[in-house]
């Protein structure tokens, strides 16, 4: 997947920073609720970014990223609750904690490939909410009751409200993490990661320490997702085991596939997509029933599923891939046939 054009990136970034400041002018369009929603999108994007590093760029599949998300969230929550640590100080600690957990989990995962790895990470996702409820940990985790937190306060007397500040906080963290990920991927290590994905044996033969790269990638990926978890603990101001069920992992995976596997920009699109569709699926299903007058009692998830199937059919390379090929084929009509051939080849490999 090609890199996102830099010019557009800067424009988008400038927009992202400016839009919340329009709140006094357009209070209904740029409402606090919408800002909060975009903050959750950013958090989701970071989590998907973490998963993309592992699955998209290193070829290891994981159904267990909700576990790392939970570890990140609980690390932050416990530090804030028990040690009165400020919310921003919890991020690096959550990242280190998740890196260690991810690295350690990456060690046995070395022996597992493909479906077996999927199953092992699946078990991880299932077990973490149970572990959080475990009675020996209850003093720390609050057991099933969870931990109630306070929302991040606006620092330095900035003229922002809580939701605006939360938005900027999440945005800055995401930009930093995106920049770091782009740099990792552009380095020797990044090329080694992708070489392992593309042709494991060749990478091994060329002298790449595949075991080291795979475990460290697992750790970095977990750290990214853990940071997202820590951010969500601040944003939601509450953590409980029920927030981190297995379905969360699936949502990350949906975001990954829909956005575009192996594309950094795709991760952001994927994060936005899943929050957006998750929220509007129910509105859409009531719209179909009440306003269009069709007598289908579609559940929100049926609508969600239909949207997914349609998207996968139209854009098998994810939204970013789909848009990219669309733009390319519009620019040079002759290239269309070649693009489709390439698309078919990639889809079948």
């Amino acid at each position: 997947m090609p890199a996102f054009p830099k010019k557009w990136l800067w424009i988008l970034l400038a927009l992202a920073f400016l839009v919340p400041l329009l709140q006094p002018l357009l209070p209904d369009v740029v409402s606090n609720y919408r800002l909060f929603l975009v903050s959750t999108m950013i958090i989701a994007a970071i989590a998907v970014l973490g998963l993309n590093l592992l699955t998209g760029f290193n070829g290891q599949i994981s159904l267990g990223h909700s576990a790392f998300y939970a570890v990140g969230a609980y690390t932050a929550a416990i530090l804030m609750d028990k040690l009165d640590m400020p919310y921003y100080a919890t991020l690096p600690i959550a990242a280190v904690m998740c890196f260690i957990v991810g690295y350690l989990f990456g060690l046995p995962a070395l022996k597992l490939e493909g479906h077996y790895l999927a199953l092992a990470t699946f078990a991880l996702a299932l077990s973490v909410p149970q572990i959080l409820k475990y009675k020996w940990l209850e003093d720390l985790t609050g057991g099933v009751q969870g931990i109630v937190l306070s929302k991040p306060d606006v620092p330095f007397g900035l003229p922002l409200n809580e939701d605006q500040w939360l938005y900027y906080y999440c945005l800055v963290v995401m930009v930093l993490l995106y920049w770091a990920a782009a740099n990792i991927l552009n380095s020797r290590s990044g090329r080694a990661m992708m070489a392992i994905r593309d042709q494991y044996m060749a990478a091994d033969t060329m002298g790449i320490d595949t075991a080291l790269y795979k475990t460290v990638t697992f750790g970095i990926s977990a750290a990214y997702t853990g940071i997202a978890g820590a951010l969500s603990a601040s944003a939601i101001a509450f953590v409980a085991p029920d927030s981190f069920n297995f379905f969360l992992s699936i949502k990350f995976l949906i975001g990954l596939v829909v956005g575009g596997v192996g594309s950094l920009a795709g991760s952001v699109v994927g994060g936005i997509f899943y929050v957006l569709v998750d929220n509007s699926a129910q509105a859409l299903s009531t719209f179909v029933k009440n306003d269009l007058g069709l007598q289908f009692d579609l559940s929100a998830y049926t609508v969600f599923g239909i949207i997914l199937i349609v998207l996968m059919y139209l854009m098998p390379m994810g939204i970013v891939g789909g848009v990219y090929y669309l733009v390319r084929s519009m620019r040079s009509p002759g290239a269309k046939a070649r693009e489709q051939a390439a698309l078919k080849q990639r889809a079948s490999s």
Partner: protein
Amino acid sequence: MKTKRRTFLAGVSSAAVLSASGSAFAQKKYSEGASDTEIKIGNTNPYSGPASAYGVIGKTIAAYWKSVNEAGGINGRKVNFITLDDGYNPAKTVECIRQLVEQDKVLCTFNTLGTPCNTAIHKYMNQKKVPMLFVATGASKWGNPKEFPWTMGFQPDYHTEAVIYAKHILANVKDAKIGVLMQNDDYGKDYYEGMREGLGKEVGRIVKHVTYEVTDPTVDSQVIQLKDSGANVFFNISTPKFAAQAMRKAADIGWKPAQYLNNVSSSVASVMKPAGFDNVQGVLTAAYLMDPTDHQWDDNADMKEWKEWMGKHNAGASLADASNVFAYSVSTLMHETLKKCGDNLTRENLMKQAANFQKFRLKMALPGITVSTSPTDFYPVQAVQLQRFKGDTWDLFGDVMHAEST
């Protein structure tokens, strides 16, 4: 007919009191979410996910407001009931509630479901000063008007119920040795803590405490462990499927303790019958609503009205599911609260009216159980009555017990 007339009279007299109490009420007053034509109420329910069995509650409540609107609404205003799916995920509940309060601008939320989900929004609702009425959870923390003046519970809390069982055990079972089976979550813990508190100094009488997860297939091994511990009292804190399994297993292995079953699983059709009537004779539980599958209520006026309403407005929903009774009953209380507000539909007045029930006869509540609230008492239903299983139905005994929550 009798009860109908009584509520009618109560309504008329309260309306008379309201109109007599000054000119302040003559003027229409609204908060966000209320107008001359509409009252907006928000709700979250798990229509998907692990707790989606509770989704019927949201559906029945929606059907209730639809039937109210068809009959002309409340004081001429239609109720716009917006219910969102949170999948029993507290993080999602926060999103949904913010949408309801900030985008949809509801007057209040009503019967939001689940202890963790309500915990997640508790602080937010009180900061925003939006009424969070009659929440659907039995935890004991919802009636705290000092710290959380915008939140009110509904049902008798699990904690108090367990205290009542503990007192009954101490008074009636000689040399009690208690075995506890508990679902490992907030609901189970609330009961367990209540039992420990009710036993007080005698807490050592709990000789065995075993737990299960909602995802477990059976509780057979737990029941065997309880029998082996030599317990002669069985406190069964489990949801319907597991409650039936546990009581059947106890009978199968010849364990005959005095059994206390939590109210959550007192349905005749979905628990007692599958467990086998022979196996559950003498089991004790506490109740506050009528069980629709219990034949002793067949001729009760409330029950007849409910069944007729179900057939007309909620066709397709199960007549044996106690959740439908719960949803209907709590909706009638909300209905009454809104009616009492008259034309003064501000959030302050809504809380004031919710905290101003005197012995209100709640539909589908057991005879003798009423709703009383005050500015310092935010626990609407606080009374339960013990009942013992006899033949193929529950047999109420003793007095209605009013327990002040701890």
